[in-house]
C-alpha cells in the first residue's frame, strides 16, 4: 500500500485557482489533524494498559503518573510465578490451533463448493450460524455435554470454538473462491485432472493467502473467546480470558498484575495486527464477522 500522496486531495478537473489551492491546503491540514486526534483516541487506552503493566501498584492508581516513569517487570514476574496465566496461554494456544485447523479443513472445501457452484441458498445456512446467539447453543450444549461427562475437556472447548471459526472461515473463503477465474479449473480438467484434483492442485494453492488470513482471524477470535470457556473449562483447561476474569475477583486491588496479565494476552493479537494488518483488514471486510 502506498504512503504519501498528499496531492491526491486535489479533485481532478477542478480549476486551479490560487484561493482554492490555499483552501485545499488548509483542508488537508485540518484533515490530518482530525485523523491524528481520532487515531490517538483509539490508541491511547491500549497504550495506557501497556504502560500500567510496567508500573508499581502505587503508580497505577495515581493518575498523575502519566507515561513517564521508571518501568518495572515485577507485575509480570508475579503473575508468571503464580502460574495459572502461563498454563492458560498454553491452553488457549492449543484450543485455538486445533479448532482453527479443524475448522479450515471443514470450511475451505465447503466454501469452494458454495463459491464455485453458486450455492448461495446453502451458503446462507452460514449466515444463520452468524445470527444465532452463541448462548442459545450454550444451554443445549451444556445440557448434552454435561450428560456425556465432557464438560471441562479440551474436546468441548475445541468444538465450541469451531462454532465461531467454521462460519467465519467459510464466509471469507466463499468470496475468495468465487473471485478465482473458473477457467483455471476448467483448463486443468481438460488436461485430465479430476474435479477434486482441480480443487486440490489448482484452486487450493491459489486460495492459500486467503486461507491464512481467515485462519489467523479464526485463531484470534478463539483466543479472545470468553463465554464458551467460562462455561466449559475447568481449572486445568482454562483459557486466557477466563483466567483474566478470575483475576478481577481475587486480585481486584492488584491493578498492576491485572494490567500485566491483560497485556500478556493482548500482545500476540497486537503483533498479529501489526504484521498482518493489510491481510486482516481485507479478511475482516470481506468476512466481516466476529464471535
Amino acid at each position: 500500500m502506498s504512503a504519501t500522496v498528499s496531492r491526491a486531495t486535489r479533485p481532478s478537473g477542478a480549476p486551479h485557482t490560487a484561493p482554492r489551492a490555499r483552501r485545499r491546503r488548509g483542508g488537508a491540514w485540518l484533515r490530518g489533524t482530525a485523523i491524528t486526534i481520532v487515531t490517538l483516541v483509539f490508541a491511547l487506552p491500549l497504550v495506557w494498559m501497556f504502560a500500567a503493566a510496567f508500573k508499581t501498584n502505587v503508580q497505577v492508581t495515581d493518575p498523575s503518573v502519566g507515561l513517564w516513569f521508571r518501568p518495572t517487570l515485577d507485575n509480570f514476574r508475579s503473575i508468571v510465578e503464580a502460574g495459572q496465566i502461563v498454563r492458560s496461554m498454553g491452553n488457549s494456544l492449543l484450543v485455538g490451533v486445533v479448532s482453527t485447523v479443524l475448522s479450515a479443513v471443514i470450511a475451505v472445501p465447503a466454501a469452494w463448493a458454495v463459491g464455485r457452484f453458486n450455492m448461495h441458498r446453502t451458503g446462507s445456512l452460514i449466515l444463520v450460524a452468524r445470527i444465532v446467539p452463541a448462548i442459545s447453543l450454550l444451554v443445549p450444549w451444556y445440557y448434552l455435554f454435561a450428560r456425556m461427562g465432557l464438560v471441562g475437556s479440551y474436546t468441548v472447548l475445541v468444538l465450541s470454538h469451531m462454532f465461531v471459526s467454521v462460519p467465519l472461515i467459510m464466509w471469507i473463503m466463499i468470496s475468495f473462491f468465487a473471485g478465482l477465474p473458473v477457467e483455471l479449473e476448467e483448463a486443468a480438467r481438460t488436461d485430465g485432472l479430476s474435479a477434486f484434483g482441480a480443487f486440490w492442485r489448482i484452486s487450493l494453492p491459489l486460495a492459500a493467502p486467503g486461507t491464512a488470513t481467515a485462519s489467523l482471524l479464526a485463531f484470534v477470535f478463539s483466543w479472545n473467546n470468553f463465554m464458551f470457556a467460562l462455561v466449559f473449562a475447568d481449572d486445568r483447561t482454562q483459557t486466557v480470558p477466563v483466567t483474566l476474569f478470575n483475576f478481577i475477583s481475587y486480585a481486584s486491588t492488584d491493578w498492576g498484575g491485572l494490567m500485566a496479565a491483560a497485556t500478556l494476552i493482548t500482545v500476540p493479537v497486537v503483533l498479529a495486527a501489526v504484521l498482518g494488518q493489510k491481510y486482516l483488514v481485507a479478511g475482516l471486510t470481506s468476512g466481516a464477522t466476529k464471535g
Partner: protein
Amino acid sequence: MSTTEVSAARATPRPPQTTAPRARRPRTFDQANRRLKWMMLAPALLFVGLMIVFPLAFTLDLSLTDAFGAVNAGKSHIGLRNFADALEDTRRFWPAARRTLVFTVGAVVLETVLGLALAMLMRKPFRGMRWVRTVLIIPLLATPVAIGILWLLILDPTNGIANHLLAAVGLPRQEFLGSVSQSLPTLMLIDVWQWTPMMTLLLLAGLTTLPEEPEEAALVDGANGWQRFRHVILPMLGPTLATALVLRAVDALKTFDILYATKGAGGGSDFEVETLNVYAYGLTFDYQEYGLAAAVLVLFTLFIIGVVVLLRRRGGRKNA
C-alpha cells in the same frame, strides 16, 4: 438448504469411474461436479447440523419443559408456561429486553455515524495510512475481557485517569461504571470505542470500490462537498452501509464479554446492564432454570432474526 438440491444430488447416477469418451466429457464433468460439491459440503453441513441445528431444536424442546437444577434430573413438558412466565416478568425480562434494544440502537447509531465520518476522512490516501489502519484494527482484535478490565482502570471513580482528565478541563467527576444510572451509557461508549473502527474499515472498503465518474459529474455540475456526499456517495454506499449495519447490530445484540467482565453476574447490583444475553446466561448457569432460560433464548433468537429481517428489508428498499 433447499431439499430439491439434495434430492437432485441423490438422484444423480454415479458417474463412470475413469476415462469417459471425449464426446461425453462435458456431461461427465457436470455429474462429477454435482457429486463432488456435496462431498465437499458434507463435513460442514454435518457440523452445522450437529452443533447448531440439533442444539437449537433441543433448546426449543427444552423451552417447553420445567427443566431445573441438575442436568440429569427429570423434566416434563409444561406447554408454553415458560414463555408466559418470561413475558409476564416485568422485573428482569422486559427491562433486559429494553436494555438490549437501547444498548444496540445507541451504540450502533453512534458507530455508524462516527465510522462513516472517519471513513470519509480517510478516503483519500495520506501519509501514515498504514499505521492508522493498524491502530484501528487493534480494538477489533483485542481480547474483550482485557478491554473491559482496562476500562475499569481508566474509568475508576477515584483513581481513574478519565476523572483526572475531566477535572483538568473543569468538568465534574463521574461515577461511570460505579453507578447504576451511568453503567449502561458507559458500556455503550466502550462499545463505540471498540467497534467504530470496524464500521470505518468496512465503509472504507466500500468507498474504495465506488466508481469515480458520478462524483466527477456532480463536481462539474457544481455540487458542493456536502451535496456530493449526500446525493452521490451515500446512495452508492447504501448496500455496504446496510450490510455493515446488520452485522454490527447482530453482534451488538449479543454483547456479553465486556458487560459480564465489568459488571459481573446479573449485570450489576441492580441488574443495571443486564441484557437478554446476560439474563439468559444467569438463568442457565447461576439459577439453573434451564426451561425458562430456553424460553428466553427462543424469544431472544426470534428477536434477533426479526431485527435482521427488518434491517435487510429496509436496506433493500432503500437501494432498490
